[in-house]
């Protein structure tokens, strides 16, 4: 091995990961999805403003975590498949269909992929729904959290979640959870992206770092 005067920085050869905190919560009449915005390659932050909430259809979004490449590819593939499907059935696709498509890809290629997508949205049949698709399982839950930052907020979400919150309360809950996770997880940070989906459509919002709520732990 030849000596290098300026060794190549580690992050050039590290896989790009979305360290991440993602969360999706149902409320009475829809869902709220939230994510942080940090993408890291090793110790370097390669993108500090990435929006990890990816649209699969008008009223169905998914939240990306794990390997950035894997997650984005799955989201794009499902976006295409869902378009074709919705033309075939001549109606808006069900959230369950979108989640199943994601699950099929995650499960079939589970050895090669390392991405966890949370699918959430609103449809006429069942209203607001959240599906978790970790390593190829498919389960519907009142809320779901994912990514490395989610470990730190397990206790918080267990304690604070209530069924049938209002839209406002749900958005606050999501922002609080993201802030707490970003405060403790080194791989999560930046700004908070929040998407609210109900029968009228999807509303995207970005909350800057200095507008996030403050929690004093000392």
């Amino acid at each position, binding site marked *: 091995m030849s000596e290098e005067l300026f060794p190549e920085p580690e992050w050039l050869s590290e896989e790009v990961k979305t360290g991440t905190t993602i969360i999706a919560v149902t409320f009475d009449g829809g869902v709220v999805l939230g994510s942080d915005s940090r993408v890291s390659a090793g110790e370097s932050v390669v993108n500090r403003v990435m929006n990890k909430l990816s649209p699969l259809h008008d009223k169905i979004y998914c939240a990306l975590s794990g390997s950035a490449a894997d997650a984005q590819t799955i989201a794009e593939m499902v976006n295409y498949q869902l378009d074709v499907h919705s033309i075939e059935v001549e109606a808006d696709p069900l959230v369950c269909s979108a989640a199943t498509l994601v699950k099929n890809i995650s499960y079939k290629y589970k050895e090669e992929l390392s991405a966890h997508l949370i699918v959430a949205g609103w449809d006429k049949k069942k209203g607001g729904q959240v599906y978790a698709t970790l390593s190829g399982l498919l389960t519907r839950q*009142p809320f779901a959290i994912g990514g490395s930052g989610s470990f730190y907020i*397990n206790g918080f979400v267990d*304690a604070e979640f209530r069924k049938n919150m209002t839209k406002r309360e749900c958005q606050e809950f999501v922002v609080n959870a993201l802030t707490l996770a970003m405060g403790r997880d080194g791989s999560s940070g930046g700004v908070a992206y929040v998407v609210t989906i109900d029968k009228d459509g999807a509303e995207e919002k970005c909350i800057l770092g200095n507008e996030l709520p403050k929690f004093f732990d000392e």
Partner: protein
Amino acid sequence: MHFTVVFSGLSGVCDRLRQARVRTPAAGSFSNVVKLKMAAVLQFPASVSTFNNYNDLYPDWTQTEVSTGTSIMAVEFEGGVVIGADSRTTTGAYIANRVTDKLTPIHERIFCCRSGSAADTQAIADAVTYQLGFHSIELDEAPLVQTAASLFRDMCYRYREELMAGIIVAGWDPRRGGQVYTVPVGGMMTRQPVSVGGSGSSYIYGYVDSNYRAGMSKEECLKFTAEALTLAMERDGSSGGVVRLAVISEQGVERQVILGNQLPKFSTV
């Protein structure tokens, strides 16, 4: 506090240290020693068994280290401290003791909460109890909580390669009132108004950050600790059983136990 994640990647080093391990008396019988020969005790998740020979005759847990998986917590309030812990000790997947007492008295009004390897923490606690007892006789007064914490820190730092111990030292002394000092794996020491530790603590950082307020009363602290530990026990496989609490103040030590069916309930849990 997330050192357990780092440790799981050191299997090569741990292999060698494990071969050099010195046999110590079985956990449960130990003697007071000033100079300690520490065994290399390292805890791995049950799924990693590169060094365990799989043998149908002997269950996996007979060959795994005893560890206090754990969730521990300590909170300062005006006039004292509240400390709490779960009660599960595991060897691999087997729960060796489901009613462990991880709140160990070091002196009359100084306790420590133990997490990590059961053998290591018991041995350290024993040694520090001896040293502190001696020190307080020499001084002819009650020792400071900071002194106890420093003794823990000295030992945990000096033998940091061989030990796997995360300890929270909490107590009351006349000079500075209620204090909580945390001595995590590696041997640093810092004073904090509220501290959580053990494998279950990762899950409750968010809850503790959002719910802690300065200036809580004793009852509020007890409720806060019980709720936080319950949440951790629900999510962490290595924590469970009952919640043991203790309040240390000028008046002394009050201990209580919250049994499994009396734990606070949360809507999704």
